[in-house]
């Protein structure tokens, strides 16, 4: 990238402007777009697939598709939502989900697994809770739980955006999110959920 080309791309350029430039072959804009979103897509990719060996493949396939089809982004939703939709498609292609998440437990049973009514020690959710513990708990969950927690709670997508990426109605998304949060809290206590694929 030349210095003059780099100067033409403002650091705070909105995604829609970057995607427009990318569709015209602007590599500086592409580099900025990838730099801006790679960590989010990487986190989502880790949530989507159980095989850590293909996380990089999901990441790369996502951005190859996004840069190739930048001109198809219409700006109707956020570019992040569009990117996560591409990532999800790429991940499901590389690692199809063999079993959907079982929803056998009623809400009260999930609550009990999460510690509802139990005298859990304060330290369970204290400030010492590390990123590693959070990530370990996420790995105990089914991909359907991980993906919704990453989109809504970790990446901060709105409810409607999250529903759109997951191809769910808003009410169904809210129900799944609540159950996923309860299972996450249970996983922090050591509970195991969903092993949908090896």
């Amino acid at each position, binding site marked *: 990238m030349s210095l003059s080309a780099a100067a033409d791309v403002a650091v705070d350029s909105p995604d829609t402007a970057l995607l427009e430039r990318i569709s015209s072959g602007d590599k500086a804009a592409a580099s900025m777009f990838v730099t801006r979103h790679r960590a989010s897509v990487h986190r989502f990719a880790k949530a989507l697939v159980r095989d850590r060996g293909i996380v990089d493949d999901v990441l790369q396939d996502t951005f190859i598709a996004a840069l190739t089809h930048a001109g198809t982004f219409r700006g109707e939703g956020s570019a992040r939502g569009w990117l996560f939709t591409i990532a999800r498609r790429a991940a499901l292609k590389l690692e199809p989900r063999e079993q959907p998440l079982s929803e056998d437990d009623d809400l*009260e049973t999930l609550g009990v697994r999460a510690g509802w009514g139990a005298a859990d020690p304060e330290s369970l959710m204290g400030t010492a809770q590390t990123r590693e513990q959070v990530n370990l708990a996420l790995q105990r969950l089914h991909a359907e739980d991980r993906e919704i927690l990453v989109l809504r709670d970790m990446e901060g997508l709105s409810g409607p955006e999250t529903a759109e990426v997951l191809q769910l109605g808003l009410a169904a998304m809210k129900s799944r999110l609540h159950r996923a949060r309860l299972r996450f809290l249970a996983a922090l206590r050591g509970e195991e959920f969903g092993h949908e694929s090896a």
Partner: protein
Amino acid sequence: MKARELPAENRLVAGLLCTQVLAQLSAYLDGELSEAEVEQIRSHVQGCTTCEEFGGRFATAVQKLREVEEEVAPDTDDRLFAALGLSR
């Protein structure tokens, strides 16, 4: 899976059962409830140790998720930019 016991008391406090509070925790955290519903949950929690403690842990867990930052390893970055034919 072994059978699990529900909390001994599903109490009715401030017009809400503990099970109703459990069902609305996410909606409460996400600001999706009316002022009246929020006030009712707060009143229940003030009078119910079970829901106060569990609601606090639930909120903390969600907050933990929101605070975790993602880091991409340098070699992952290198492979990504190389695959895309881009320089950083």
